[in-house]
Every structure is written in C-alpha cells, then in structure tokens.
C-alpha cells in the first residue's frame, strides 16, 4: 500500500519549469528520502503536497483518496525555513498550530503537553520563542510538526540547527513515529542521514525525477564490480582479471587496493590474487549514496 502517490506533476513558473512530469510513490511506513541539489524542485514538490501551492497538472493521492483540504490534519510539515511567532509563548503557539491542524482545544492541550514532556521542554511552556536558543526553537518546531499524530510527516532538512545529542533524540523520535505507523518524507542533501535512515529514495534534478527505488535496489543498480583488497606486500605482478583503480597504505604493512573486475567473476579474481599477494580481506565495494548522488548530478553538465 502506498502512503502517497504523485502522478505526472508539472509546475511552471514564468521563466523556468520547477517540476517536469514528476511521479513518485511512497510506501506506507517508510522513510522516504527526497534528494536533489539546491533548486532541483524539492521544495516546490513539498509545497504542492502540503497544498500550499497547486500543481499546474498532475494528480496526488493520499492512500486511495485524492489529496484535498480534509487531509490537512493528517499531514505534518517541518519547513526548511523554520518559522515561529517570536512574541508568542511556546505553549500558546503549539496549541494554536494544533488547532489549525484541526485538533479541538482540549486535544491540542493534551497532545502538546505530552510532547513538551517527552522532549524535556516543559519548563519553556510559558516562555516566548524569542527568548529560546536556536536548538530549543527547533524542538518546538518539531513538536508542532508531529503533535497531531499525522500519518504523513514531511521533514525538510530536519537536523539542521541541532547539536549531535538533540539530532539523535529527534532521529529516535522519527524512527518511533514510523513504528507507530507514520510515513516520513525526508528532504535533505546530507547523504549520511539518508544512508542511516531512509528506506526509499528519489532523486530530483532540474525538475525531473531521475531515480527512485528502495535504497538497497538503487545501490544494487550502481554496483560496478569494484572490490577492495587488504593485503600484505605489493602484488608480484599485475592481476589479469581486473584494473587497479588505486592503492593506499593502511597501517604499517598492509595495503588497500581497489580493483575493478574486467573479466571473469570475483572468485576468479580472488583466486588470482592469492597467487600474487597475502590477502587479508576481500570485499565488494558498494557505492554509497554520496557517490551515487554526485555521479548522477554531475552527468548532466550545469547549463
């Protein structure tokens, strides 16, 4: 079952096309990474999903229903540009946002109370936002995103502004929310978070979706028969089955050589290497998201 599907989304502005036939499908209870360089169209897509702006063309389904105003209460949104009312007290602010998401006043108080307890910011309830540090304000903003138990949570660069301790705290909350049944869309260009958290990814570049799938399958698709060998002593001669990409010293005596197989299987290469050197470790090098990202975005030269 898909939590959210978009079909052929187009969005044109007067001098450029922000989204060009973007179709994505986000599985339920997944953490879905929406990747792309700056200006790729991620924020436009997120704004369309949040019904802040409308697409010129295309359809969006939440589950099996067409996305509409009644879904506002089931979506939580953390914009990249964080914003709170500076002069308003934390508690009043959270209750206000919860009410706008459709909670009754009592429910709004209950939920915000639960969350300020959970994130240890109960003593800030009566403080104005302008008196909080940046990290504190980020926590308040996070609460405003999740307090109404949204089924779909959209987080735009959620960890920017958090110290490592709080980033970890928020990360655990995100995982917990997923366990409770929420689907999370994650927009970021920090590949280490994608590596850690995301199950599925889509890459948007210049308004077009150029890649989508589970993280595992994407990585599979980018395998390029590269192996890393940790070995003692130089190869006695060049291996026949592979090209040497690079060699570097690790530790006092060991070398780490990256090889790309040119003929035969990995077993053939390993068998050959045993003849050439003392092998300590032999391992396939699966590209990380960072490399995939750079490779895909670089392919098309900037114009």
């Amino acid at each position, binding site marked *: 079952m898909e939590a959210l599907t978009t079909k052929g989304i187009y969005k044109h502005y007067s001098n450029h096309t922000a989204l060009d036939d973007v179709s994505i499908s986000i599985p339920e209870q997944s953490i879905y990474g929406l990747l792309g360089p700056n200006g790729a169209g991620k924020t436009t897509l997120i704004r369309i999903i949040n*019904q*802040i702006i409308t697409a010129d063309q295309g359809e969006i389904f939440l589950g099996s229903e067409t996305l509409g105003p009644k879904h*506002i209460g089931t979506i939580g*949104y953390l914009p990249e540009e964080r*914003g*709170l009312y*500076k002069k308003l007290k934390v508690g009043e602010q959270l209750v*206000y946002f919860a*009410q*706008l998401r459709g909670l009754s006043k009592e429910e709004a108080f209950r939920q915000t109370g639960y969350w300020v307890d959970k994130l240890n910011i109960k003593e800030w309830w009566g403080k104005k936002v302008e008196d909080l540090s940046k990290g504190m304000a980020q926590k308040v903003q996070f609460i405003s995103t999740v307090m109404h138990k949204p089924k779909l949570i959209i987080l735009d660069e959620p960890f920017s502004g958090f110290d490592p301790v709080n980033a970890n705290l928020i990360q655990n909350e995100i995982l917990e929310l997923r366990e409770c049944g929420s689907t999370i869309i994650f927009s970021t260009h920090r590949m280490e978070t994608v590596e850690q958290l995301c199950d599925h990814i889509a890459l948007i570049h210049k308004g077009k979706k150029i890649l989508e799938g589970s993280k595992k399958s994407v990585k599979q698709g980018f395998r390029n028969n590269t192996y890393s060998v940790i070995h003692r002593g130089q190869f006695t001669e060049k291996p026949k089955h592979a090209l040497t990409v690079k060699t570097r010293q690790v530790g006092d005596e060991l070398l780490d050589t990256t090889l790309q197989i040119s003929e035969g299987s990995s077993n053939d290469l390993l068998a050959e290497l045993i003849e050439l050197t003392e092998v300590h470790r032999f391992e396939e090098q699966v590209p990380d998201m960072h490399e995939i990202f750079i490779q895909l975005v670089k392919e098309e030269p900037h114009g």
Partner: protein
Amino acid sequence: MDKVWIIVRREFLNRVQKKSFLIATILLPLIFPSIIALLVYFSQEQKKNALPQVIHYVDEGDFIDPKPLSDDFDLRKFDGGIDDAKKAFSHSNDFGLLYIPPLKLSDPKGIQLFTKQSPSPSVLSKLESEIETQIRSAKLLVYDIPQHILDSLNSTSTKIESIKVSESGREESNNADVLFGIGMTGGILIYIFIFMYGSQIMQGVIEEKTSKVVEIIISTVRPFQLMMGKIIGLAAVGLLQFSIWIVLITVLSSVVLNYFGFEIPQKELTEQTVNAIPADQLNGPSIEIIRALAEINVVYVIGHFLFYFVGGYLLYGALFAAVGSAVDSPAEAQQFIFPITIPMLISYFALFLFILDDPYGPISVWLSIIPFTSPIAMMGRVGFGVPLWQSILSMVCLVIGFTFTTWIAARIYRIGILMHGSKVNYRVLAKWFMMKA
C-alpha cells in the same frame, strides 16, 4: 470557516494581552484631555496675570479717550511731537507707540503703531477695534445722538434658531457648531483608526512573512483565510479599544463637568448681567447646544459611524495586507503605502475645506459616495442629515468597494507571502494578480 475564527481569536488575544495595548487604551483618553486642560489652564492663567500692554500715544487731533474699553491696553498720552515720542519710546521697555494724526472723522487714515516686536494679529485687531469704537463714539457725538439711543443700538444682538423640518413634519432644532463637531470627530476617528490598524495589519503580515511562519500556517489554511482572520481580528481589537475610550471619556468628562459645573454658569451669568442682556436670553447658547445634542438622532449617527468605520477599515485593511505580503520590510512598503494614503488625505482635507462647510454641495456628495473617500467624507455630512438615496448608494458602493479591494488584495497576498527577496514593483504585483491559483 472555524479556522478563520481560530485565527481571529489568536490575533485578537495577541494584541489585547500586550502591555502596550493596555497602556494605550487606558492612558490615551487621560493624556489628551489632560494636555488640553493644562494648555487651557495655563493660557487662562497667563491672560489673568498679564499686565495691560502700555501704549504711548501722540494724538494730534486730540480726540482719544485715555480710558480704553478693553483692559488689554494701558493707553498713556505723550505730550509732545511724534519725533520726541519716538526718541523717548526707543529708550523705554513699553509695548508700543501709537501715532494718531489729525483725523477726518469721515475718513480716518494715517494711524501708525510703532513697536519693537512685531505685534500679533490679534493684538493689532484688538487695538483697531478699540480705536474704531472711539472714532464711532466721536462720530455719534458729532451727529448729536443721545447716549441712551446709542446704548440701545450697541446692545443689539440676536440668534437664529435653526429648525429642520422633515417630510413627515417632524421638527428638529439644529446647531451648526454641534453638527460640525460631530462631523469632525467622526472623520478624524475613522482616519486615525484606518491608519493605525491598517499599518498594524501590514506589520503583522510582514512579520509572518519574514519569520517564515507563514509557510506553516498556509499548509493548514488557505491564504485568504489567514488574511481575513488577521483583518477581522484586528478590527475586533480596534472596536474594543474605541469602546473603552468612549466609555472612559464619557465617564471622565461627566466627572469633570460635574466638578466645574458650578463655576461656568455663574461666570456666564455675571458677564451677561453686566452686559445687560435681556433675562429671557440668559444661557441661550448653552441651552440650544444641549437641546441640539438631545435632538440629534444618536442611533442614526452612531449607526452610520460604525458602518463607515468598519467598511473603511475593511477596504483599506485589505490593501495594507496586500502591501505587507509583497515586501520584505516596512521600509520597502513606503512606495506602495503612498498611493493608498492619497484618497484618505483627499477626503481628510475635503472634510475641513468643503464638506463641513457645505455638506450638500456636489463635491461633498460625490466624495461621500465614492468608496475610497466615503468613510471620512460621510462623517462630515451625517450630522446634517443625508438623503436616504445617497446613504444607500454610498453604503452599497462601500460594500462593493471593500469586496473589490479584498479580492484584489487576496490575489496578490496568496503569491506574495511565499516570495522572498524578489524586487517588487507594480508590474510584479500585476503579474501576481494575474497568476492563476
């Protein structure tokens, strides 16, 4: 719709809970009357304590009576020629030197006043009337008119009571001064209210836009709902503030009037007795004012005031919101605020220049019908009574007017609040306006 209500409530509470609101609401009605009272008090004290101004005079025709009618001047005859008098005057600290050549009573000319500081117009005109009176007395003597006829001529005074007859034959007495006062107060209040609260709407929108909080709000409500919530919320604040002011001012002024109440009539009484005004005209003007106040159709005037107060605010409030949404800072907003204020300024000046003077003149009528000027212009006319068809036409125009400005504003607002850092001019605004949803 209930989301608009949530926003209205929030905006209302945000403003009302601020200390500045409390201070402004309570102190303003105290501060202005206190300032006025102080100024009046000091000017009266000054008048009371001021010594009459010493004026020396050289009277070549010898007909000035050195005992002046007004106690503002102390006239002292200088014996000698004008040249000696000038010399002597230049060494003295006295106010002035009056030179009166031999006068032809039929054509009194050539009177000169020498002073060290330029005399104020009021002093000059007092002195003129002083001399005119004396010349007149001299003329009367020449024409041989006895004193008692003269006194009776001098005390001629009457007052026309203006009574308006409506078609149903009902008679209302009018006092032009009271109607003038009502028109002026109403017009000024609406003018201040629109400016004060309009700029608050604008600042609120700019704050939401620059703090980026608008992105979260807009993901839960439509931009139009947010805009209307803000406008209505602030209207509620404004109405509350004005209600408090009116209550406070009414209470304060009745307290003050009660306190001074015994002094004023007595003073008037003595003055009027001295001037030998017939007894049945005693307190005439004040009775007339009270009667005029009592006969003004309070519901009619207040009803009109509230309608134009709210209508004008909605008309301009939407425009202020649109401007706020288009810019990133209040400084940038200036260029767009200016054209908005022009019709306000026109109606404000017209209020004093034509409308209160001639409430039924064509300019007054048209200004009170055009929606951009009608809120202020109509206040100048409402006390004098407005023909029903003009009232209805004006109100319908105002409703159409604010619906129209709200529609325009909403189209600019929905795009503007999400645009940052772009340089905005009228062409950009037009483009936003044309953009489809």
